[in-house]
């Protein structure tokens, strides 16, 4: 079992004819994802490696029954692409694009919510369910193993690090979601935790946060109130200076708020097993599972 993506996913790629769009669409298909079409305005009627390309999302959806999209269009056009997908009735919108203006993100979030759709990202690696051979994103598929750990993270490569440590210890994953490092994102830590809690295929959860904002504190509160499965946590950036943006638009300690120390404390107070070192993500999970057994 898995959450959000799996055997029933029928994926399109918006921006399929760009270099990255093409590369990653083909990598997703090679992993096992059912890629049904691509969309690039003006390129309708062509094909990318026999995947049909349409001019509009609504046409792609009508012709192929697509229910998910992966967006690679440049930041300046990303908000429009997200709105097009939501309006066409696509249920799951995975926006990989980075560098989108924050106010566009706030507008996107409202549109997606009003349409009853779900967005993952933007500025994220995407989502993967190894047991169902479904990858919608840019993560390296080969580090993942099918299993029963759910992973939710604001980071990309740090998530790969965690997944690799898990796989090395034989801890496979049900679904891994990279929710993105921007100030406004579609699917939050809390949304993901709620889905993992309800998923019979998920036995324990890893939550990776970073400095900036209060999402980790809110997620910790949610874990305390609603999650009965073991949760392991990590927060990147305990050595980050205040007032400096650390790569991600959302990773900034502002006005003394959003420090790693506060977030780790909130996690511990909620009964989450916090890994002190990024080298201990796998072993902390193994211990959390053993403690429960």
């Amino acid at each position: 079992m898995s959450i959000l993506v799996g055997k029933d996913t029928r994926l399109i790629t918006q921006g399929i004819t760009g270099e990255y769009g093409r590369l990653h669409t083909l990598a997703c298909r090679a992993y096992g994802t059912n890629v049904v079409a691509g969309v690039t305005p003006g390129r309708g009627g062509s094909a990318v490696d026999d995947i049909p390309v349409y001019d509009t999302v609504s046409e792609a959806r009508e012709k192929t029954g697509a229910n998910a999209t992966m967006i690679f269009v440049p930041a300046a056009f990303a908000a429009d692409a997200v709105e097009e997908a939501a309006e066409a009735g696509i249920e799951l919108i995975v926006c990989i694009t980075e560098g989108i203006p924050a106010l566009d993100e706030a507008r996107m979030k409202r549109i997606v919510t009003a349409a009853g759709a779900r967005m993952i990202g933007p500025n994220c690696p995407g989502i993967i369910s190894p047991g169902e051979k479904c990858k919608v994103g840019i993560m390296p598929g080969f580090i993942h193993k099918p299993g029963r750990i759910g992973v939710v993270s604001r980071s990309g490569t740090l998530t790969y690090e965690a997944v690799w440590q898990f796989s090395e210890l034989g801890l496979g994953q049900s679904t891994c979601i990279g929710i993105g490092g921007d100030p406004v994102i579609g699917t939050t830590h809390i949304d993901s935790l709620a889905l993992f809690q309800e998923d019979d295929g998920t036995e324990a959860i890893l939550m990776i946060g970073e400095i900036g904002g209060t999402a980790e504190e809110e997620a910790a509160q949610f874990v305390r109130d609603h999650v009965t499965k073991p949760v392991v946590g990590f927060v990147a950036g305990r050595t980050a200076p205040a007032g400096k943006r650390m790569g991600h638009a959302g990773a900034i300690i502002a006005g003394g708020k959003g420090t790693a120390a506060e977030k780790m404390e909130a996690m511990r107070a909620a009964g989450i097993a916090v890994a002190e070192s990024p080298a201990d993500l796998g072993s902390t999970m193994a211990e959390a599972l053993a403690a429960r057994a």
Partner: protein
Amino acid sequence: MKLHEFQAKERFRAYGLSTPRGLVADSVEAVRAAYAELGGELAVVKAQIHAGGRGKAGGVKLVRSADEAAGVAEALLGKALVTKQNGPDGTIVRRLLVEEGLPIAKEYYVAITLDRQRETPILMASAEGGTEIEEVAERNPGAILREDVDPVRGLAEFRARRVTYALGVPKPLARAFAATLVKLARAFLDDDASMVEVNPLVTTKDDRVICLDGKMLLDDNALFRHPGLSELRDENEEDPTEVRAKAAGLSYVNLDGNIGCLVNGAGLAMATMDIIKLHGGEPANFLDVGGSASAEQVTTAFKIILGDPAVKGILVNIFGGIMRCDIVAQGVVDATKALGLECPLVVRLHGTNMAEGRAILESSGLKITPAGNMREAATKIVEAVS
């Protein structure tokens, strides 16, 4: 991207907001002339630097004559102004804003920013103008009023009125005060700001509503659609290394330690700094080469790291996804040779094409210490520099 006060006020005026009459001056003579042109007795001379806390640091002075204005200019121009925000070295003052003095009746605090938790821009206001908002938030959080700003429509007029009445703005000024709030929200949205702060927004004894101060941060991600605003960037105020890194597509932040870090991905880059510290070392920088760096970018990254004289060793930590380890390895080898690198270098490569990458490092004949995982990498580099 930060704007100077005088730039923020220019933006405010473009949206129909009132600011004090003022002139920007970059010499003592120009300050004297500005004072004369303003024509009143009371004027204010304000240092134009990005750091906050200028007032307490002596960067804002009331003057009552041209000589006094010139004296203040003499004391500030070309000198470093150290505030509690800009570190021990301070910032060189290159420009002064000379403004008319106003008969202030009452000071308010107003700001618009993105509320990440609620995923919407919000207006924050308090009747305790002139005080820092963090201080008010600590002492009397109930004194800060909040209203949502719709990311498309802006600040609804009823919300602007509600805040205005709650702040106790005198009735004859209420309409102008509410209109000011609506225009500030419009400036925030249309300029793609990440923060607009007016502290204080004042009412005057002759019944005007004026933005006495102005602070504006613009969203870097939105500058592509505001070419005119991009020109307001003042690179004198930025760390030259960070500017160079940005031009090369790298994300770099200088820190106080002696272990340089080169990592792909922001989260992993922070985690790498963290693990160095956990093992008793001190990171010299945050450096994210991004998801798909070229061999040239890796070389530039090395140059930037080595430009910091404090660096005694370098840790490269790459988890290849899109990025292939063999390309990174080639970049590391090229850079090491080209720069004649002498300090200890520990390289941890994992992920896509890692075997090929490790082989390139081994066969290079260079003194590169490989590490199999993050713990080993951190242990080795900390040992090497101590």
